[in-house]
């Protein structure tokens, strides 16, 4: 695997593609859905057949940070014809929404089974340096700002606390007949991201959003890594 950070630097980019981000994180032992690049519809269908249906396609562009905002994500594609049609729609829609963006193709991912959505993030605070954030996905983080923070590096005690500190924690314990989420797996992933961030001080931001928490295990289905601006 080529070093995605070196590749991005060489190309003058700070935003890693999702394929690059997941390659990096996967190599660090963090549970991510695998992502493979496809540069046209036919290639996307070939890759999808190898991965196994159903699949997800997401636009790949160093110029597009929020893929769903430009119609760049298609879920639950069941066969080759659907993949090819989705590829065409994604390229057309992204070209229309972001005419200046250079589109490299799409990433193809297995369609993960749904779980409780959480967010694990890393940002760089002007006072405290690299800090980690944890929250429930969707409306809880966007509207209610229900997130907790810890400074990198985290110890196991910190990971246990950051998960339990959010107001929405009871959701992870299981509500309305839902089984409880695998909180230990979330804590493990948080600690993995913390040590990953320690080993890569050149990373300014990292988002695993969403991470699906299951009754057993947890899986990041989207990942975004941003490098610090070069000195």
């Amino acid at each position, binding site marked *: 695997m080529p070093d995605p950070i070196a590749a991005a630097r060489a190309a003058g980019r700070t935003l890693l593609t999702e394929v690059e981000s997941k390659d990096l994180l996967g190599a660090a032992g963090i549970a991510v859905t695998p992502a493979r690049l496809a540069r046209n519809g036919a290639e996307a269908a070939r890759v999808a057949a190898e991965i196994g249906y159903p699949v997800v396609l997401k636009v790949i562009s160093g110029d597009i940070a929020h893929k769903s905002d430009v119609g760049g994500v298609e879920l639950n594609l069941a066969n080759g014809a659907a993949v090819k049609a989705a590829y065409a729609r994604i390229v057309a829609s992204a070209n229309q929404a972001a005419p200046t963006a250079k589109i490299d193709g799409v990433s193809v991912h297995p369609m993960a089974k749904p779980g409780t959505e959480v967010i694990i993030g890393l940002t760089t*605070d*002007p*006072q*405290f*340096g690299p*800090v980690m954030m944890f929250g429930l996905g969707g409306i809880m983080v966007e509207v209610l*700002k229900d*997130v*907790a*923070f*810890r*400074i990198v590096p*985290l110890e196991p*005690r*910190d990971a246990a*606390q*950051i998960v339990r*500190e959010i107001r929405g924690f009871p959701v992870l314990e299981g509500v309305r007949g839902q089984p409880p989420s695998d909180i230990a797996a979330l804590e493990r992933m948080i600690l993995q991201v913390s040590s990953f961030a320690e080993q890569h001080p050149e990373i300014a931001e990292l988002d695993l959003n969403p991470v699906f928490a299951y009754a057993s295990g947890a899986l990041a289905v989207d990942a975004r890594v941003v490098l610090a601006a070069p000195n």
Partner: protein
Amino acid sequence: MPVDRARLHRALNPRTVVVVGDKGPTYNWLENQREYTGNLYSVQVDPNEIAEIEKRGFTNFLSMNDVPGDVDLVICAVPRQVAPRIVADAIARKAGGMVLFTAGFAETGEEFGAQLQERVVQLATADGMPIVGPNCMGIHNARLGVKFTDNQPVVPDGNVSYIAQSGTHGASLSGISPLHGIKVTRTVSIGNAVILNEADYLEYLRDDPDTQYIGMYLEGVKDGERFFRVLREVTKTKPVVIWKGGQNEAGARATRSHTASLATPQALWDGMMRQAGAIPVNTLDELLDVMSCLVHTPRHVGRRVALMAMTGGQSVAISDAFGRANLTVPPLSDRSYEQLGEFFNIIGGSYRNPFDMAGTIGFAGAEENFQRILDILAADDNLDAAVYEFSAGFFLRQWKADPDRLTRLLDSLESYRARTGQPLILVLHPAHIEAELVPIKAQLAARSFAVYPSFDRAAQALAKVTTYYETLRARGV
């Protein structure tokens, strides 16, 4: 350049203080040092000011060069454009350090102020002279009588130190502490903290044998990563209570113009403080409440409290307050209930925990009954702490008629505290005659009791201190 610790120690514990540029009508900087035990000199060139300074009994020199002996601390109160020259003079005299009271630097947001600050920073860092400030009130050393406001206490045996990014809050914390029986060692108002920053002060206090407890008011930190590392280490041996100011957008706007501090989300500060094992508070009152509980109660674990209220309504209110604070109000042991049942008046009263005691300790046999209650609670294994509603409203008339009765009550409470080794905190509500409470509060402070004006404040303080000690245990300390 790292801080010269020996010089900082001289500045914070000066044998000679030189005040530069103090002026009338009040000459606060010189007058504040009336109780200072070291050598105090003035440097002032204005003949009109010199006359008055000398009339007040202070020795004035025209230049810092003329001051005899070593200069440990320079308090600089000159206009901002003169400040760099005074910094240079202090450096030439090899002064221990300087308090730069002068304001009008980076906090103004003006180019001129920022340039002046840069000039001061360059001079000080090139030489290694520690500077407190600028834009600060500086140093209070309670042992030596160095003050930055005249209502700060002089204390021979303090063990609490305050770091405040606000002179007013520093003055309030140190000035109010004696009312709570909190013994202050030193207070530093740190201002813009451009040369010495928060982590430097915290490191100094970590190694200061006269500091066992630390209280901080902060609006931001200059080197957050180092501050966090130092804080996490200090909290293992000395509790650190932090009041972070500027918690919302308007507050953050205020901190920018007050001390040029950067905004960091409050949720991040909360996480950082918890991760570092500090005790977060939101107000001046809360800082003092927690400090009072820290200094007046032993290290403890466990959340089960006995609540001794006087009346039925208060027994409900006290239980609500301690429940809100995540403390538990357990049933007592069967043996305790058996013994209490032998004498406790349950007509209009209850001993189930919470206690509603007026019918039992308010009238005939009162003192004996209260002693029996304390003895029973002291032997009960279901308890980790106790709270007593120190009901002055109820007892004032009796205490006035027989002052020894108050003394005997305090003796019993002290003996309970000594026997159990557990926290015993008191609630003394405002009474209808506030003046009557003043001497009582002084007695409670002198006997090292943590006293609160409401159940809620008592509960929150005890809960925060308990959480601190629980965290220490979880950290293996």
